[in-house]
């Protein structure tokens, strides 16, 4: 059992620090490259319209308590009536989302570009680390771990006697990959942090169907129980004024 390995200071100067700096710089570079490659396509008029209608309906739903019952009823009918309500989707008009997806190659192209701008730098850095720095200990984490972590932290070192808290350079790369996310969100702003989640949403919303969300919004407006907030507010105002007068 090697208790205290002595690490060469050259490792610090030529592996540990450069690796981290390169990871940060590559992250910044990736951010700007993906910003440059992002294509701006004119949004479809119909989709924008539907999105705005849904937003308005949602606002109505959230603020239903602040308008009198009569006004609420009028708005509700405006949105949900069966003849020409904004949220009413005539049957048979529902467009097949999958077909729409394929008819618009830009969308798929955009997604592929984003994925590529993520994968290519990662592969390149990993290959670079592998090629130059494989096979030796580069760092030591300051807390003990169980042997289960050996595969994770000493990736690339096939010695079972080295203490688990010593980290190989390949694993230092992985540590950087996950740990620098916070730093990126600080230096690049929120956009970078949001990128991942946005991509997730795009993936899951592959067959996103606007007519469906219109229908859902319609249903939730239909079932809302209107309760006017003004009486309560009046009582509150009365309390406040009384306190002031006293």
């Amino acid at each position, binding site marked *: 059992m090697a208790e205290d390995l002595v690490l060469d200071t050259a490792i610090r100067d030529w592996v540990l620090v450069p690796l981290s700096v390169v990871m940060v710089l590559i992250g910044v570079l990736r951010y700007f490259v993906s910003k440059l490659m992002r294509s701006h396509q004119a949004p479809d008029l119909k989709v924008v319209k539907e999105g705005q209608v849904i937003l308005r309906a949602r606002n109505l739903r959230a603020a239903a308590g602040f308008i009198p019952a009569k006004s609420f009823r009028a708005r509700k009918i405006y949105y949900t009536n069966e003849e020409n309500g904004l949220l009413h989707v005539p049957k048979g008009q529902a467009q097949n989302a999958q077909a729409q997806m394929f008819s618009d190659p830009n969308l798929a192209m955009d997604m592929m570009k984003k994925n590529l701008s993520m994968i290519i730098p990662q592969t390149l850095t990993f290959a670079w680390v592998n090629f130059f720095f494989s096979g030796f200990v580069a760092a030591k984490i*300051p*807390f003990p771990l169980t042997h289960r972590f050996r595969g994770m932290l000493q990736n690339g070192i096939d010695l079972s006697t080295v203490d688990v808290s010593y980290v190989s350079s390949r694993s230092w790369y992985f540590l950087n990959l996950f*740990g*620098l996310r*916070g730093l990126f*969100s600080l230096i690049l702003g929120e956009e970078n942090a949001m990128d991942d989640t946005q991509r997730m949403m795009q993936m899951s919303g592959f067959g996103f169907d606007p007519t469906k969300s219109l229908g859902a919004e319609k249903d939730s407006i239909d079932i809302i129980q209107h309760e006017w907030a003004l009486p*309560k507010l009046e009582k*509150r105002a009365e309390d406040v004024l009384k306190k002031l007068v006293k």
Partner: protein
Amino acid sequence: MAVEGDPRASAKKSLGDALDDLPIFNADNLQNNIKSIYYSRTFLSIIGGVIAGIWGFTGLTGFIFYFIVMAAASFSLAAKAKFSVHAYFDSWSRILLDGIFGGLMSFVLFWTFAYDIVHIF
């Protein structure tokens, strides 16, 4: 330090906590406040990691240090909000818990980095 630019939108919701049954808040401002909490926590976890590394904490001490830093951050955020949390956030857990475990990874990375540079080599 943690609270720099915290509740930027101080004119957030008008009638605070008295009307519990009626949610009155501005979603944009709430989002903004949550974001500034996230930033201050991330910043603190990185700075805390470097400090822990330079001071040479090992093992459990480092993690305890991290949670102490986070608790201090929670406290100062609450103090910045003048302890009327419901004027700025929708629940206490936003101030007390949000982002604590998200920052742990950054903390460990910078802790290791500073510790290695200062103590190991």
